[in-house]
């Protein structure tokens, strides 16, 4: 049975009016976590501190000090991000960080009144797309435990669609927010590079890393983004129906897709046109060069951070993650510089494709949720490595830094969620959220509800 879970927007007014207590929201989320422990969505559940914070929020609101729509709302944080007093495990058996302070992004959420309910599971050190290499066990897709929810922020997406939290904080170095969002039927935003601070977060690749919000609809993602960026604007799109121009980059991004993904993109495209928006074909020059450029940046940057631990504690890494990190130690400096040089070419190519468009529209993932343990997957009649397939449509925008949001766009015939991405101009993430809130009406059928919840 599909359950439509409440959004932050839906409960915030009731929290403010005291029709709902933050304590009840927290206890409800804790009960959902407890009921599906087998998913391994969380590494640390902060039950006591969350209930204490909810009681404090309740007192504050009763005293007339309501902070805004995140006040009293349970939010989870990927366990790559520092939360004071809890270990930052990064999903690894390597010794965790023991932070005395919150990451700035967590501080901002707490300042907005959000309640941190726990730390979600992930692909070890965010270096994978399936969330199956974790010292705390693989994250399982809530719809079928034999499948992956995607990654690396897999625990966050699983927690969202199971109602274990109302919002989540993920990280995205090659697609790690957007991949699980697409495969689980939730919404995930990778802002413009550098827009949100990554301090207090274990790095994977410092020039590709982004932190961003995940939630069950665009409006909730916008509320979280505002708090995380220290803004106070709201995403009120009710009654607003501007006409946008979308560019669909078909070459490379639509070359090999699961039929249901292709159908979802076409359905969204037709619905936008029917609603009066303009959709045209565009091309991102040199997009096919993305994988080699990405690899020659992410590998040496990841190895730089991990070099001391690879030398002192190599056996504590998952074998696959360790080998990928070791591989980075062999990348030549001249090839790293070549990749940085080509990054500028790709950045200009995305800017050129966006010229005259409000946003690009493209699939978020070429496939629905893969089987856990699969190393290859068939896409459109040919086999390719799972990791390469899952990164194929997302990693370019980590290279170029453009803001991107993944939103649900229906499901396969057997109910597996699929999604689309919207890419905005650099530095216009808030505008991208407005566009996405309009597109969501057509891609999800109107209410923006998630498709993966069970209950």
């Amino acid at each position: 049975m599909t359950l439509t879970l409440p959004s932050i927007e839906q409960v915030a007014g009731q929290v403010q009016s005291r029709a709902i207590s933050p304590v009840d929201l927290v206890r409800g989320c804790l009960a959902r976590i407890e009921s599906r422990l087998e998913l391994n969505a969380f590494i640390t559940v902060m039950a006591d501190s969350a209930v204490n914070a909810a009681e404090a929020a309740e007192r504050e609101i009763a005293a007339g000090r309501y902070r805004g729509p995140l006040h009293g709302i349970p939010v989870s944080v990927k366990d790559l991000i520092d939360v004071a007093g809890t270990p930052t495990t990064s999903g690894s058996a390597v010794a965790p960080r023991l932070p005395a302070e919150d990451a700035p992004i967590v501080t901002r959420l707490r300042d907005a009144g959000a309640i941190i309910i726990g730390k979600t599971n992930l692909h070890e050190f965010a270096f994978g797309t399936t969330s199956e290499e974790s010292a705390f066990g693989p994250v399982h897709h809530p719809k079928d435990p034999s499948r992956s929810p995607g990654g690396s922020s897999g625990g966050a997406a699983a927690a969202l669609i199971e109602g274990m939290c109302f919002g989540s904080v993920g990280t995205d170095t090659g697609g790690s927010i957007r991949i699980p969002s697409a495969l689980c039927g939730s919404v995930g935003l990778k802002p413009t590079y550098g827009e949100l601070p990554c301090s207090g977060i274990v790095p994977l690749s410092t020039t590709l890393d982004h932190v961003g919000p995940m939630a069950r609809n665009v409006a909730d993602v916008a509320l979280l983004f505002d708090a995380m960026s220290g803004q106070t604007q709201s995403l009120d799109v009710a009654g607003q129906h501007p006409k946008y121009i979308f560019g669909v980059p078909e070459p490379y991004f639509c070359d090999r897709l699961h039929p249901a993904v292709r159908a979802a993109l076409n359905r969204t495209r037709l619905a936008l046109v029917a609603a009066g928006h303009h959709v045209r074909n565009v091309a991102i020059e040199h997009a096919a060069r993305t994988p080699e450029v990405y690899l020659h940046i992410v590998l040496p940057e990841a190895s730089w951070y991990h070099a001391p631990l690879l030398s002192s504690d190599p056996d504590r890494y998952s074998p696959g993650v360790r080998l990928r990190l070791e591989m980075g130690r062999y990348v030549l400096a001249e090839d790293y510089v070549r990749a940085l040089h080509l990054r500028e070419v790709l950045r200009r190519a995305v800017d050129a494709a966006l010229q005259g468009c409000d946003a690009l529209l493209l699939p978020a993932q070429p496939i629905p949720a893969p089987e856990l343990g699969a190393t290859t997957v068939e896409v459109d009649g040919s086999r390719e490595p799972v990791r390469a397939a899952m990164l194929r449509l997302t990693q370019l925008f980590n290279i170029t830094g453009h803001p991107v949001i993944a939103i649900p766009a229906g499901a396969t015939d057997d109910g597996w969620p699929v999604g689309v991405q919207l890419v905005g101009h650099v530095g216009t993430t808030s505008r991208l959220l407005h566009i996405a809130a309009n597109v969501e009406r057509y891609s999800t059928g109107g209410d923006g509800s998630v498709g993966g919840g069970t209950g």
Partner: protein
Amino acid sequence: MTIEDWLKAACEDAERRGLPELKPLLESLARSMAALRDADRLIDRGHGNP
């Protein structure tokens, strides 16, 4: 350094460090390196230096 020389040296080093399972990944990286160098050469020739 040519890709062939790099791959030979990298595989020997991996072997010496007790990481023979790294070889197929290094071979894959060598193919990616060739594609990167091709792109660097072709894109510069066709469009000038960025």
